[in-house]
């Protein structure tokens, strides 16, 4: 992420979260946080505990963020933000929290006077992580048609190109879903399981091979030792934790979409 991208990102984030931008120079941003955002990104739970316990007037922080250090004479004027910095990570985390569930409608025009019909879809964005002593991650955006149960991949890429808003457009008609979203969620979970099962898992085989090899090395060290000492068990456990293949399925976000 380049300096300008970070700057734009921050601006959109604060706009969406109702934090007033007081000053913007393109490489420097002064912003008045709301109470809610202060709690999420400022790392000061004790302050908020104190304010709430004593019923004092809250004073959410005013932040000056420098997004391009090379353009600032005095870096002490504010907090330098760059890709990898802790504050940006907290803002990423807050974004995730505040952008988890949506219900969106495609904005269709009814110039022709004909009523437009919108079909309900349910989408879940999954992150699948493969872990052993190495890591690989994949994103799957699965969308299911709540009328006929058809499932499509890359759903997010598809809907992000549409003109969407959180309200139903005038003169449109939304079909009542046949598959209940809670049921659809189960179907998508089954789908993601089967996608994972059909994926190439040679990585796990390779990890097991490395594991066995290192276990053999360890056993060689204690060859002829009748009662293996505790350090053997500790090492063995370390090997298991390092190489044992694991898969994690995480949901990033998802929601309901009414589209043409």
């Amino acid at each position, binding site marked *: 992420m380049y300096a300008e991208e970070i700057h734009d990102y921050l601006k959109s984030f604060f706009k969406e979260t109702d934090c007033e931008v007081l000053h913007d120079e393109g490489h420097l941003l002064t912003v008045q946080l709301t109470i809610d955002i202060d709690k999420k990104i400022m790392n000061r739970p004790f302050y908020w505990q104190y304010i709430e316990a004593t019923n004092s007037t809250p004073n959410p922080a005013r932040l000056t963020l420098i997004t391009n250090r090379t353009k600032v004479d005095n870096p002490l004027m504010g907090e330098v933000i760059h890709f990898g910095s802790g504050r940006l990570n907290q803002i990423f985390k807050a974004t995730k929290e505040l*952008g988890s*569930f949506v*219900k969106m409608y495609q904005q269709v025009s009814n110039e022709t006077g004909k009523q437009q019909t919108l079909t309900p879809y349910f989408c879940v964005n999954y992150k699948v992580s493969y872990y052993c002593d*190495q890591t*690989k991650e994949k994103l799957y*955006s699965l969308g299911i048609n709540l009328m006929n149960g058809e499932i499509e991949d890359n759903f997010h890429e598809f809907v992000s190109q549409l003109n969407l808003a959180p309200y139903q457009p005038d003169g449109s008609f939304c079909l009542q879903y046949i598959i209940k979203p809670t049921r659809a969620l189960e179907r998508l979970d089954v789908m993601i399981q089967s996608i994972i099962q059909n994926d190439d898992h040679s990585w796990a085989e390779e990890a097991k091979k490395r594991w066995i090899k290192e276990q053999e*090395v360890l056993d060689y*060290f204690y060859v002829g030792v009748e009662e293996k000492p505790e350090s053997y068990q500790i090492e063995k456990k370390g090997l298991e934790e390092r190489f044992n293949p*694991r898969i*994690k399925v995480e949901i990033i976000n998802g929601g309901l979409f009414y589209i043409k």
Partner: protein
Amino acid sequence: MIMERSTNWREDFIKRFEQDGPWDSWTLYKMSYEIEKMNLIPEFSGLQAPKFLTNLQLLPHQVEAAQTVIEKMNGKAILADEVGLGKTIEAGLIMKEYMIRGLVKKALILVPASLQNQWVTELNVRFFIPAISYRKNTPIDQYDVVVMSMDTAKKSPHREKIYEQDYDMIIIDEAHKLKNHKTQIYEFVQSLKKKFCLLLTATPIQNDVFEIFYLVSLLKPGHLGNYEAFQSSFSATKNSIDGEKYLKELVNQVMVRNRRHDTGIEWTRRKVETIPVQFTSQEQEVYNMISELKSVSSIFASSFTMVTLLKEMCSSKEATFLTLNKMIQKCSSTEEKNYIEAIIEKLMNLETNAKAEKVIEIIEKAQDKVIIFTEYRATQAYLQWYLYTKGITSVLFNGKFSKSKRDWMKQLFRERAQVLIATESGGEGINLQFCHHVINYDLPWNPMKLEQRIGRVHRLGQEEDVHIYNLAIENTIEQKILDLLSSKIDVFEKVVGDLDDILTRKA
């Protein structure tokens, strides 16, 4: 295979669905997805960390080292770059990579006390890893990344507290301090779970080949076999080894070692000279009398005491006197006492110190800043006085100095004094690239100590050739030390790899 399903998203969604809201912002929803996409780890191989480390100029050999450790060595390795190539950077990079990949959360970094704060700063400032420095009573269960001094870690109650934690990664700096398997620190580390583990040392062999065996066995027990197998397959004795080619190959499977000349960075040269010194006839006489001591009294039967005395005699009469004076207290018979007193008398009457005169000669010829390393505090004080009488300004340096005093002495040396006189223990933790002359006034038994000394000066940022003068008095124990040093260097080079010049090369 284990499959985890995380997040309470499902429950939360059902709740919101049933209450029809509240629904989140579409913009934040899209931003969140974009961030995930951007931070995705698309391949098992390759490094993700560098793009996050905007405060750091990584050198190619450092990136390569990190990649080798992660991809070929499965996260357990000895980082053995020569001094000054950035082992700390490599370790930080590897740790960061594992943290990004979600494989390491909790890490313990064991370092000598003098380097504790430096590590904490580096990790926080350069790697954005929130590491804390462990002091007594730090609640370590509340911190993910803890930097602790080795001396603290091995003792109760700290060691028990560490064992209670479940660390994903252990990093040990100056790992040659673990060369002895009988020490408390070795046993402590041995019983520690090492899921991912890095041992950092420029000197994986200091004295004998068993040190590499114990170091590797700590990291990966069995890699070099068990003790008996190691000893018999390589018919290893302390200073010689068979089948070194195979051993070297095995060691290289768990060790990354960059040499200065492999880094693509321009390095200035090392010019190493062995300077032979002749005792004056009076000095020689005292030296001979000391050599005879063991036949005079049983107190001197211990070869350790004898060796100490002889080495001290090669250093200064001040150093020798202190030890002799201690010995005389232990003597019971008058005969023994008389002999020692005779030595002391002769000693005190010595007017010239041939080695110190040689030092003056070198300093005058250099016409530049010079560092002198000695093993003895008494010699250090004497040299300062002697240089003073010759009109040469000097400052002292040793390992017991506090951080602020060290910085002050360094400053004084840079700006005011011509000479810095350091004892061995002052060797670690100062960088003096503005100086280009190193005098090894006394020789240590361990070649790696010489390497550490030279490394203070000959490191990244040095712009001129570095001159190294190894002083050795002829026909004394120092001659033997020189021979032993070169046979140790020989073992090191056979098993670990080539070394930059420490001693004058044999023809």
